[in-house]
């Protein structure tokens, strides 16, 4: 039954891409919602995690799981360092989102330049050794266990993120800052500490997205820019600062990409994202899931 095969394969790809898009967009929106930093470098951070995983797993020969944990763990001190050096200088600046946007475009350019003289020279295409061997059949459709594991991990991470934001006291403090930083501060929330925490958490989620993507697909350096644009489009459509919006729209984008790629070129998918983003910007700049 080829139609059934196409259907299941499209569904699976949509789910896989949707989970990754949701993770990255959630990370971007957490950072924008708290410190108003529209991080255009999110695609480069995503790629950095994927490339670091490749280095750890292929060049150093670490076990893929160890390498993944190492990369995701290393994003924390890296984020803290960046926060210390650059990000915190703007916490009290009015209209800082424009400054942050330009700053992140600068970071994008630096990382893109560094990648092209290092990884770009070493290889065209990057592939991570599988997490585990074997294949599972979803009906007639064969899926490598490795990709299945990436999907399950991604869903678990999204669930954990929701639980953290909903029930844990830090998550509740983050959401309080999203809603009204002055009131949160009056209620005893240390707003600056929450800014720092959100920056670390957001980048951690983006890095996790990059790691999962690297396990699921082979990739090249061009993935960064399309990821940046996609994550921005998801954030704007879902409503900046809304994690629910990021996940809902992220899933829609994942399925859209899977369906469009099955019938037309990926450029068409990109055109449609950008078109949707422009429409939302013009009609309802606060997004669909505005809080």
């Amino acid at each position, binding site marked *: 039954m080829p139609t059934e095969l196409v259907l299941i394969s499209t569904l699976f790809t949509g789910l896989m891409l949707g989970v990754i898009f949701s993770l990255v967009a959630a990370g971007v929106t957490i950072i924008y919602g708290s410190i108003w930093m529209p991080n255009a470098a999110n695609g480069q951070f995503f790629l950095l995690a994927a490339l670091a995983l490749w280095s750890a797993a292929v060049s150093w020969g670490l076990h893929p799981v160890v390498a993944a944990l190492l990369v995701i763990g290393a994003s924390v001190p890296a984020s803290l360092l960046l926060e210390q050096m650059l990000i915190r*200088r703007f916490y009290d600046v009015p*209209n800082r989102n424009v*400054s942050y946007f330009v700053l992140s475009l600068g970071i994008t*350019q630096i990382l893109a*330049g560094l990648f092209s*003289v290092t990884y770009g020279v070493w290889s065209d295409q990057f592939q991570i050794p599988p997490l585990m061997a074997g294949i599972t059949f979803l009906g007639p459709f064969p899926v490598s266990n490795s990709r299945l594991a990436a999907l399950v991990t991604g869903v678990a991470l999204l669930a954990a993120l929701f639980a953290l934001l909903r029930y844990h006291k830090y998550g509740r403090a983050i959401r309080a800052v999203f809603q009204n930083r002055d009131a949160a501060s009056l209620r005893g929330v240390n707003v600056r500490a929450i800014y720092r925490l959100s920056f670390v958490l957001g980048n951690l989620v983006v890095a996790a997205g990059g790691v999962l993507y690297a396990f699921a697909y082979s990739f090249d350096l061009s993935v960064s820019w399309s990821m940046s644009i996609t994550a921005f489009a998801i954030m704007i459509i879902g409503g900046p600062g809304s994690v629910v919006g990021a996940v809902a729209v992220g899933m829609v984008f994942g399925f859209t990409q899977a369906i469009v790629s099955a019938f037309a070129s990926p450029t068409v998918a*990109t055109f449609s994202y*950008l078109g949707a983003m422009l429409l939302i910007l*013009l009609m309802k700049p606060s997004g669909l899931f505005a809080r």
Partner: protein
Amino acid sequence: MTDALRKHGRGLLVFAVAAYALPLLLAGNRYFAFIGGIALLHVVWTAGMSLLYGYAGLMPLMFAGIAGISAYAAVGLMAAGFAFWTALPVAALFAALVGVGLGLPALRLKGFYFTLCSLVIQTVITLAFVYFVNLTNGDTGISQIAPPAWFGGPLQGVGFDLVLATLAVGAMVALVLIVEAPFGRRLVAVREDDELAEMLGIDVVRQKLAAFFVGSLFAAVGGAFYAPYVGFVSPRSFDVLLSLNIWLMVAFGGRGTIWGAVVGTVLLAPLPFLLQDYYKVKDVIYGLLIIGVIVLLPGGILGGLGSRAAAGTGTQSPGLRRKEAA
């Protein structure tokens, strides 16, 4: 008008002398003369960006896209048999109108949302350059663009450099006249606080729209000259990095000052050529400069805004900030 020219007369005179002397001094070495010509071309672009970013407070990341539309249009018209001097005004006007058409809805947005919207539009334009292969020859680009005709012969070498010098001087005179006119002062009012400007009876969107048309015209004229001067255009010639670099030249020199854009251009435009051997490091250096300007030099070298610019900001009104915080 005469007041404006008197106020900036000395500066314009010095700039004109320098602009015309540059090609003549460098005439011995074609490579350096070419770099000088590219810098003069960039003065046209930074003059337009200075008007938009420095005075109107807009950060249009689709600037390069508009220049690219004009360049492709000029090349297309020349290929269809028109002379460059006919193609130039048509292509420039067409690109500026397309720019306004694309920017029209975005101009209602403020600050970051406008900038993001312009980034999306730039990305769409770049994708379109790649996608419509029969018009643009896709990623390969169009090479061997013929030089314009000039008094019977082809315009090239020092002659073309001097034409570009004239263009750069003309762009600066135009910038001075616009900025010192009541229109320029209205733009500054809009930049500083658009709600207050609205209350004073200024039609904010209309001022922005007019500024955007004029700024796009600068971009488009530069783009139309770029094509025959360099002799090659591709989607990468007019990608978002060019917009960012032109912005950087204005911000680095000093936003909201007449001569800051020129200082920034003179310092930064030749950089990619001088770094030819380290070509790939260019991106890293530009990135570091962008961060340096934002963090350390928010007013630029000439520091035009002085104490008023706290830290590389000011494209939004306090009113919007209040609304956003609410």
